[in-house]
């Protein structure tokens, strides 16, 4: 369904564009949870001078960078099982407290990946039936409990739009997504439907339309994507 004369981007460039743009959603003092994959790259683009607490569902607030060889401690890991360092002000707690934090509305922002998102803001990211079902882990709790939910993902997969009218994969959550960031554009999910608010200037609105299954409204205030 994609137009052949569209600009081509490498996988690395796509990840960078998405992560750079997502980093702009984080503000001073925020408590943020990041999923695995592109969401993890977001930390690379948050200014080091900014005070942000990254939360990990295994019981860790204040996750810093991956631990370097020699200082790796298998007793301090992130939710992906990687030994990490603790930033100033960090704390450890158990799974119960982790999910009180996540489910009770104490997190400002969640940034996570998805297999599909639909125009109502429902997302699917934990199962492709009979093929691959890693499980939901903490994703369902996180998406329901977080004040703001941002999905970051490639716009398409194997030529198919990942932004659909209605998800056909098992849902992670129903109508919880607030913002969708891809390498092509930014969509805001509103009661009126999906609104195209920003576009990567190397793409045209026609490119977005032809690569997006969901219906959307073009914002009267459409801007170039800040990257």
């Amino acid at each position: 369904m994609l137009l052949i004369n569209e600009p081509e981007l490498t996988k690395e460039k796509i990840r960078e564009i998405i992560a750079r743009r997502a980093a702009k959603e984080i503000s001073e003092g925020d408590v943020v949870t990041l999923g695995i994959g592109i969401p993890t790259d977001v930390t690379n683009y948050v200014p080091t001078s900014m005070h942000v607490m990254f939360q990990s569902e295994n019981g860790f607030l204040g996750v810093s960078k991956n631990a370097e060889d020699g200082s790796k401690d298998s007793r301090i890991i992130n939710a992906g099982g990687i030994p990490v360092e603790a930033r100033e002000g960090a704390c450890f707690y158990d799974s119960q407290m982790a999910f009180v934090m996540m489910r009770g509305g104490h997190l400002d922002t969640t940034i996570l990946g998805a297999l599909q998102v639909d125009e109502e803001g429902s997302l699917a990211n934990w199962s492709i039936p009979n093929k691959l079902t890693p499980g939901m882990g903490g994703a369902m709790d996180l998406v329901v409990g977080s004040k703001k939910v941002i999905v970051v993902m490639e716009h398409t997969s194997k030529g198919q739009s990942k932004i659909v009218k209605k998800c056909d994969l098992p849902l992670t959550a129903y109508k919880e997504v607030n913002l969708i960031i891809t390498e092509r554009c930014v969509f805001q999910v509103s009661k009126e439907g999906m609104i195209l608010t920003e576009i990567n200037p190397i793409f045209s609105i026609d490119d977005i339309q032809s690569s997006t299954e969901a219906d959307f409204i073009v914002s009267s205030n459409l801007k170039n994507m800040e990257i």
Partner: protein
Amino acid sequence: MKQVLSTKEAIDLVRDGASVMVGGFLNCGVPDKLIDELSDRKISNLTMICNDTSYPNTDKGKLIVNKQVKKLVTTHIGTNPETGRQMNSGELDIELVPMGTFVERIRAKGAGLGGILTQTGIGTIIEENKETMTIDDKKFIFEKPIGADIALIYGTKVDKFGNVSYYGTTRNCNTVMATAADTVVVQADEMVDCIDPNDVIIPGVFVDYIVLNEDN
């Protein structure tokens, strides 16, 4: 005073067909010596309740690879391809539970509650065949408690009263599991006479037996 057991004596407490909670998040904070013994003894038909099935050749993952588990209640199996394979082939009965719901269901058992109400899973397959309730215009799913015959948990430091303290991210679901099983065995890295009361994470009242790493 809590009794200190050898790994072998502790695993004598686990029978074929038992329901077993196993602490740990991936391979962090896992009672690995106890799992190794369970794995060596080929105790099977287990109902295993654990956060994840780790990796194929480590801790909880080994029990899956050895086909010692009949039913699995967990939140994530993506790090162990063998778990997914056994699920798809129908060899293993898996109940996938959202992690927060998993923890709270165990807590409910430990606290003597009849269950919990949560918004997690509304509008997804998690809601199917479950009771729902509307409170202040919000819809909640009713989820039942989860308990077990025995919990095998990890502790960094334990004292002779059974109090447990932790280092780093090793606490994870060990603490809640200590409250929800008929018998609780803690595998600890170190035993001291008395942990400073300010540092105790699991009160000794929840612990039945202690197994020490150095005794193995």
